[in-house]
């Protein structure tokens, strides 16, 4: 019995938010509602994964992606300030993207720290 068994359906609905495929008006299937076809098991870790897909590299990629966003935002702001034709809204939107990416990274870090501290508090 999974305590968060309803989450996969919710996540599925997130996937159909505007901008992804909301233009398709077809009826949305609700897999997992009868419990027979869950949409993938969260937390299922395959120990035989290649090392390139390791947790550390995934995290490192996230950090470098965020760094890239920040660099792009910096470049956009520089372009705006130097008058090289970058429109205002592009610079601001690049900054917002960098901001949201950074927030996402911080949230991931917070979750990791929380789980680490939870493990450290465990009574043996």
């Amino acid at each position, binding site marked *: 019995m999974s305590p968060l068994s309803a989450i996969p359906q919710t996540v599925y609905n997130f996937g159909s938010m505007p901008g992804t*495929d909301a233009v*398709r008006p077809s009826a949305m299937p609700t897999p997992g509602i009868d419990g027979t076809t869950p949409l993938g098991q969260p937390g299922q870790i395959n120990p035989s994964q290649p090392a390139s897909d390791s947790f550390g590299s995934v995290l490192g990629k*996230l950090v470098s992606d965020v760094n890239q966003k920040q660099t792009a935002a910096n470049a956009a702001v520089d372009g705006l300030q130097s008058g090289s034709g970058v429109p205002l809204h*592009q610079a601001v939107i690049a900054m*917002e993207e960098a901001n949201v990416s950074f*927030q996402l990274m911080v949230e991931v870090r917070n979750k990791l720290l929380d789980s680490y501290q939870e493990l450290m508090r465990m009574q043996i």
Partner: protein
Amino acid sequence: MIQPLSGIQNTVAALDAERTRLDVISENIANANTTHGVDGKPYQRKVVVFESSLQQAMGAGGNGSMTPQLHVARIDTDKRAPLEIYAPGNPDADARGMVATPNINIHEEMADLIAASRAFEANLAVVKNEKSMAMQTLSIGKH
């Protein structure tokens, strides 16, 4: 590459296009009284033509992977004839004393300006909403 604000690519393109439209309208208003343009003729009103690749791509493909984007196809000139007014003192007046002035109606331009401005505003609201959704999603599980 993570796309935290994945839905706004189209919005950014639309913002670009509306921005161009606003630029063209401001050019029209600025040149409303230009009787002697670069080519010696009165200034001709310019109109922005948006490419409808948005609907075409959506109708044909419809899958989420390709992102159809709005863009300015071309900036064309209004074909209406210049307005002739009687002003014999004007250096650009012809033998009959008539001056050809641009085919620009300032009220029409102001209405267009408001429409473009509101469209820009609507796209900005989409960006704002998308960001708010992302931030709210990030706070799942917080108390």
